[in-house]
């Protein structure tokens, strides 16, 4: 029997760096590993002794893709620690912010990173020639998501407008109206993208491994901005107990921590949200889930891509209805005044890659004494490893290149943000 040795160092088309290793002999997998060999980011140390109003500013820099999510989780933690209530209007606006980012991030992942796999090419560049309309539709959606985020958050990334207590400057109602229309107009573009993906969905391997799914969940909406921790295995937990849900632990092959809850691993992200909260999706999003045959509880990690697509449609539709609700009685609430206070608080937001936690402890002057951030990709590393262990043996009779591609696609389906979960320091010794 043949011997298989795969070693993909620095897998491409994901955020950050990770390696795939597979050794097999005589039809037996000897070793299969998702390797994350990175140094910690140290953000929890950066923010110590910093005043409360700088924390979101600093922690948003953990990532260039989900910076709005980090900002919101950070603000919620600060507000929880200091008992700060934000106005209902600010709550709605923050929901727009997370929708904006969800669209930005998902379309980037699907359109630029995953689509080459669907069309069997190496990157998005050749698609510009062969599938010009599809690429243009993707760019158009991405642009809209960026602009919309800017209108609400002040910047497309590393937002300036989101501050403890609410908004530095209440976004202009005229702009919101303008973007309501643009969002409506974009439905067609989103459907074009969805159709194209549907036509090529056969390229996604069918694979399934039962696992636990964890996401925010709440009674009255498809939870992104707020909710309690939900699990497909174990009901709900209050967010304050997140430490007992993620159960971080250390393994030798990864300097990023691993997580587990009820089983050997769990998954977070769009698919987890779909599995837990699908019935609260917008009508059109549900329609698309149906077209793709995405039904809860779906245990195929590759369907995370489809769940992201469904969420794009949901974010568009839900943003429109949120803007309608906002504009009924829209007030200027710029620069809310707040007073710092001692306390400990946890903020949880379901960001594009899954549930994100920030926790801070402040002294009475609002100086941060302790911080902890648990990033979605961290929570997924362990599940990726377990998927590998189940998936690899099923692949062994394929040619080596194909095995490699399948494993790569599996990692990509998780949309990991490795640079976010830790930070890879590339050291090349030249002697």
């Amino acid at each position, binding site marked *: 029997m043949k011997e298989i040795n795969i070693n993909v160092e620095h897998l491409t088309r994901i955020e950050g760096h990770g390696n795939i290793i597979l050794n097999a002999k005589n039809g037996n997998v000897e070793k299969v590993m998702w390797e994350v060999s990175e140094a910690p980011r140290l953000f929890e140390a950066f923010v110590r002794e910093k*005043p409360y109003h*700088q924390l979101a*500013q*600093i922690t948003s820099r953990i990532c260039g893709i989900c910076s709005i999510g980090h900002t919101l989780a950070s603000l919620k933690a600060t507000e929880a620690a200091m008992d700060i209530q934000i106005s209902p209007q600010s709550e709605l606006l923050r929901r727009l912010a997370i929708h904006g980012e969800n669209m930005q991030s998902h379309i980037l992942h699907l359109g630029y990173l995953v689509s080459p796999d669907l069309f069997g090419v190496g990157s998005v560049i050749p698609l510009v020639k062969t599938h010009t309309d599809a690429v243009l539709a993707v760019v158009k959606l991405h642009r809209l998501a960026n602009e919309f985020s800017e209108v609400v958050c*002040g*910047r497309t990334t*590393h937002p*300036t*407008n989101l501050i403890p207590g609410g908004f*530095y*400057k209440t976004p202009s109602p005229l702009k919101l109206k303008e973007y309501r229309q643009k969002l409506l107009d974009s439905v067609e573009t989103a459907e074009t993208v969805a159709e194209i993906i549907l036509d090529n969905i056969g390229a996604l391997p069918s694979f399934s491994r039962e696992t636990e799914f964890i996401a925010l969940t709440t009674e009255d909406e498809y939870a992104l901005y707020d909710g309690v921790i939900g699990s497909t295995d174990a009901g709900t937990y209050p967010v304050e107990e997140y430490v007992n849900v993620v159960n971080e632990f250390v393994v030798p092959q990864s300097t990023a921590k691993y997580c587990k809850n009820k089983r050997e691993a769990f998954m977070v992200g769009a698919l987890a949200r779909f599995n837990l909260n699908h019935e609260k999706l917008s009508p059109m999003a549900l329609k698309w889930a149906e077209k793709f045959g995405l039904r809860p509880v779906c245990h195929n990690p590759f369907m995370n891509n489809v769940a992201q697509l469904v969420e794009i449609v949901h974010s568009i539709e839900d943003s429109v209805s949120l803007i309608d609700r906002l504009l009924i009685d829209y007030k200027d609430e710029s620069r809310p005044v707040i007073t710092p206070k001692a306390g400990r608080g946890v903020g949880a937001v379901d960001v594009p890659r899954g549930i994100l936690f920030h926790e801070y402890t402040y002294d009475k002057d609002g100086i941060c004494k302790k911080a902890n951030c648990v990033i979605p990709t961290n929570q997924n590393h362990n599940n990726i490893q377990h998927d590998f262990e189940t998936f690899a043996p099923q692949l062994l009779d394929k040619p080596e290149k194909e095995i490699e591609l399948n494993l790569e696609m599996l990692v990509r389906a998780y949309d990991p943000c490795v640079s976010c979960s830790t930070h890879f320091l590339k050291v090349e010794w030249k002697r």
Partner: protein
Amino acid sequence: MKIIINDTEYEFKKGQMVLDVARANGVHLPTLCFNPLNAQARPAGCRLCVVEVLEGGRPGLQSSCTLPATDGLKVSTRSRPVYNQRREVVELLLSEHEQDCRNCFVSGDCVFSELSREYDINGVSVCSECPNRKQGCLLSRGVLCLGPITYANCDAYCTRRGYNCEGCHSVMKNEDLLRFGLEAFAKAEFTKEEILEAARVFSFEGVDVLEKVMIEEGFK
């Protein structure tokens, strides 16, 4: 016949200037007013091509585009005086250029932005790009804006949209520029610590220089 540029000997033909010999041998010398398409005309106006004559001629700085090569002439294209002079030239040329040339995004396509990086010409502040600077400056409205002491070239992204500048382009490192910038804070009521604390979010070395200048300027 040979001349020596930076300790290396080069052959030359009669009538060649030092610049021509250097160019022919791939020795880099920056020029602005020299036009290779009209090599006869040498206005020698920009003074960017200066070299330092070390031996075999009148010692000191001379423009290489008009300095005839003579046997045994020894020059340097990279001595300290040469660098200082060129830096001065570029700085003067850019003195009315209200742009942070060094970090400009058209770089690669602009000889000045290359020169200002090569000769470390410091930029201008975010205020120079800010639409509020004539009226409605955030500082006058009690908001701590780091625009005056932050390198420009974001086109005042945040202040243009009504938010304060957080200094994400880094606090300037040039003492003079900081001194000018700090004038804007003199009228606003922020303490030294408040300003430093805000500056520390995105800057490291610059903050030490800032602190020094603030102490000199009597900030409390």
